[in-house]
């Protein structure tokens, strides 16, 4: 049975029930997850999931139902359930849902990659992880070494009552590791290439080869142990320089989430929260300094980010939206339902679902700060900084439910003195108010220092949906930032 035939069972039934709109997503997903701990395989697993999700608009309200059973009777019952749910939704509404127009597309697209990660052998994958593990534990003082590698193939067939038929396959690859050192009354950790799972991109196995995992392991382990002898990060107001991965997370939390239009409109008020970026601030708010240019770019031109695709899960083509232009707030992440709220006649194409059993909601695509136009290496940035603190690799992150007040901790820091990196600092942290922070940015490194980081675990929605997002960033400098609050008074 073809996927189109299965979708037609659903669309025909919803049509008979007189819905004003329906779409069907059939998703076939495969994952491989490998991990090691202290010289042994921690877990090795393979999973597959195939199912159908049916979304309908009836009586001006949404309904959605999903099943893993792709027999005709199950699909039709699920479609009927979606209609029943929509009609129930319509009992509590203030107005009818209105969708921005979108022309139907028939298309096929797949993530470009050089090596299918699933074609690589598990032996090869585990061997690499165990070589990293060996390097980490070669350093005296390391009490725990963990590594991981993950592949995901996500194939989706999208059909809508408006005539779209889109077949899209996304491939994601990721890997990373963390070394821990416990001694006395402190536990320190260092991660590479990033914390909380490493680096993830929509790429093939070539990403793993590019990451130079083994080559960096000893340095990371040595830094982890050295943190026990490092001085505590001081408290006070300082100039700080952030590495690109920490800046990527700063973008995620203090730009990416507040620009989600569903959040702005109160649709996430009970759980993920709302946003300080109320509608009147569009094209009025000075979000950051003149150097701050941020885009939401889902197109292939932006790179192989976790937010790169051809069409979103409403069948809207990938787009690049200017979010902050020379410091001015210029754009939101929108959907077909919400576009009208900002006077737009088209969705920004940001609706994505975690899987076949979830509805699409507004998600970050690749929310990236553009690199500086003038050539500026990391070394030149440090040389240009008389006094400050350089912070690297996130350790903790927290921000209020309107995305004003944030606090971040990093795994490691170094004092900057006289244009040079000096003594190592443990437990660095910084905090502030979103717009004050971005307005304090006075330097950002150029394109050659820019990395498109992947955040594979962004949570939003009820039921909770986990989504991958991309964040490009270069190291950047911020003036007069509050440092050290995390340990103040504790």
């Amino acid at each position, binding site marked *: 049975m073809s996927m189109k035939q299965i979708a037609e069972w659903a669309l025909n039934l919803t049509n008979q029930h007189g819905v004003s709109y329906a779409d069907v997503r059939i998703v076939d997903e495969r994952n491989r997850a490998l991990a090691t701990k202290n010289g*042994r395989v921690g877990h090795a697993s393979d999973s597959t999931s195939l199912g159908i999700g049916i979304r309908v608009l009836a009586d001006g309200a949404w309904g959605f139902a*999903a099943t893993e059973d792709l027999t005709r009777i199950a699909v039709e019952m699920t479609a009927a359930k979606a209609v029943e*749910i929509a009609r*129930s939704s*319509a009992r509590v509404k203030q107005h009818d849902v209105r969708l921005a127009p979108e022309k139907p597309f028939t298309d096929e697209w797949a993530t470009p990659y050089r090596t299918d990660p699933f074609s690589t052998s598990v032996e090869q994958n585990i061997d690499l992880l165990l070589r990293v593990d060996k390097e980490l534990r070669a350093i005296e003082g390391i009490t725990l070494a963990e590594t991981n590698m993950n592949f995901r193939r996500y194939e989706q067939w999208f059909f809508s009552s408006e005539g779209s038929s889109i077949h899209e396959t996304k491939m994601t690859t990721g890997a990373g590791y963390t070394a821990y050192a416990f001694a006395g009354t402190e536990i320190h950790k260092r991660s590479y290439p990033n914390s909380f799972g490493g680096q993830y991109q929509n790429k093939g196995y070539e990403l793993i080869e590019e990451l130079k995992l083994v080559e960096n392991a000893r340095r990371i382990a040595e830094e982890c142990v050295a943190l026990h002898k490092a001085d505590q990060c001081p408290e006070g107001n300082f100039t700080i320089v952030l590495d690109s991965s920490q800046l990527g997370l700063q973008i995620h939390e203090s730009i990416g989430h507040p620009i989600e239009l569903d959040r702005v409109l109160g649709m996430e008020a*009970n759980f993920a*929260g709302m946003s300080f970026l109320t509608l009147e601030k569009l094209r009025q708010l000075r979000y950051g300094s003149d150097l701050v240019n941020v885009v939401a770019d889902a197109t292939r031109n932006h790179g192989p980010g976790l937010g790169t695709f051809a069409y979103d899960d409403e069948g809207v083509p990938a787009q690049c939206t200017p979010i902050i232009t020379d410091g001015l707030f210029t754009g939101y992440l929108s959907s077909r339902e919400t576009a009208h709220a900002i006077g737009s006649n088209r969705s920004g194409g940001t609706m994505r679902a975690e899987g076949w059993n979830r509805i699409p909601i507004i998600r970050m695509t690749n929310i990236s700060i553009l690199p500086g136009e003038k050539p500026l290496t990391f070394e030149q940035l440090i040389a240009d900084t008389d006094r400050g603190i350089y912070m690297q690799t996130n350790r903790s992150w927290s921000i*209020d439910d309107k995305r004003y007040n944030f606090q971040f901790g990093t795994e490691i820091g170094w004092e900057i003195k006289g244009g040079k990196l000096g003594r190592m600092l443990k437990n660095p942290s910084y*905090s502030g108010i979103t717009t004050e922070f971005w307005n304090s940015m006075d330097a950002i490194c150029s394109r050659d220092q820019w990395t498109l980081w992947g955040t594979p675990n962004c949570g939003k929605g009820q039921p909770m949906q986990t989504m991958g997002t991309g964040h490009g960033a270069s190291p950047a400098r911020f003036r007069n930032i509050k440092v050290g609050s*995390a340990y103040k008074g504790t």
Partner: protein
Amino acid sequence: MLTRDKASEIFERLTKFSTADEIEALIAGGQSALTRFANNTIHQNVAEENYVVSVRTVFEGRTARATTNKFDDESLKQAVLASEALAKVQEPDPDLLPAAGSEDTDGAPPVGRAFFETSSLTPGQRAQAVDRIVNIAKKQKLTAAGIFSNSESVEAVLNSRGLAAYHTQTSSEISVTMLGGDSSGWQKSNSPDVRNLNPVALAETAAKKALQSAKPRELPAGKYTVILEPAAVLDLVGFMFWDFGGMAILDQRSFLNNRVGTKVFGENITVWDDVSHSLQSGAPFDGEGVRRQRVQLVEKGVVKRLVYARSTAKKMLESEYAAKVGPVEPTGHGFPLPNEVGEAPINIVFEGPGQSAAKGVDQMIAATERGVLITRLWYIREVDPYEKILTGMTRDGTFQIEDGQLKNGIRNFRFNESLLHMLSNVEEMGTPVRASGEESFDMVVPPMKVRDFNFTEVTKF
């Protein structure tokens, strides 16, 4: 719903495809539905049905897992083959034990947690309840947001050593946020039995909080006496129980490294893990099918015991830490194998102060000269793993207390607070209740009055 017999039939078919020394199947899934509302409108409304079978095979100390949501012979065969292929390429793990046997699961405490009234709830019934919540919002000129969900789920573990554990239960949950112009209030409740949920009461309390906290004032950051409602307590303390597993000590990643057997909290803190408690939920067996035991984790501030999966217990007994961590034995708290985490207690029950000493939140407020009432916390993250310093924000109903009364709403605070410090400074507690938050799993906790809670910053609302 997938029955016990059906689970056995699936397992029988799996075994035919396997050449492994041992085979184990974890079968889980069910039906769930969630009605979501915001701006006084149902804006998302979903339902799903899904079951998975997760197959673990073992060859001479080597093990791996493969999962599928398809139950035809070919899909099951592919899952078995995938699991075997992953297992065979590994080095043997000397710590891997033979699978648990039926003797390990027999005697699991009976828990009746499946209710027809919950599983049969319709979209129309959920919409009706949401309508009542929205009407309360409209009456108070507020805006309502939240969810009403219900589900019916099954969990089964079967293996080639004859173990067959099966559990089915229902769940229901209502969460309500009421929004005013510059304030908000929140309430949440869940239960296996939907008849225990009262949407109107939750909405009225959330609305009252939103109205009372209007025109919030700004208080300076600093140390305050706080009264934490149960949801705020559970979202904080939930961060420490992942460290109460034996594996966390073996990995030296626990804040209990060198602290088991010592007094780390106040005299009034006693904590159990108890799956059979009447306010708890979940299966009475763990990820290997082993029956869960009732374990006293903390007694009068002293950490008494940890929980163990079978292999962790063996490893601990052979380790240098064996004499320093209290009794060591499998307790039925393991996660499905293979995993790196080991185990954790997930049915937490705080012991209350006794009926005569228990104080309700209102009584705590009345006895507080100057302090802060916290309804809910948000975006809590660990700042320091050994001192267990957490950061996060207050949210949806934060009040100034003065001279024994709620004075007004206040702007939300950021805190940086050590759990060791906090649980050593609990001045009063109420009767423990089944609480539900957003940052941690549900547990049975009391409201707490805590002195010197450390607020470090104030946000703009």
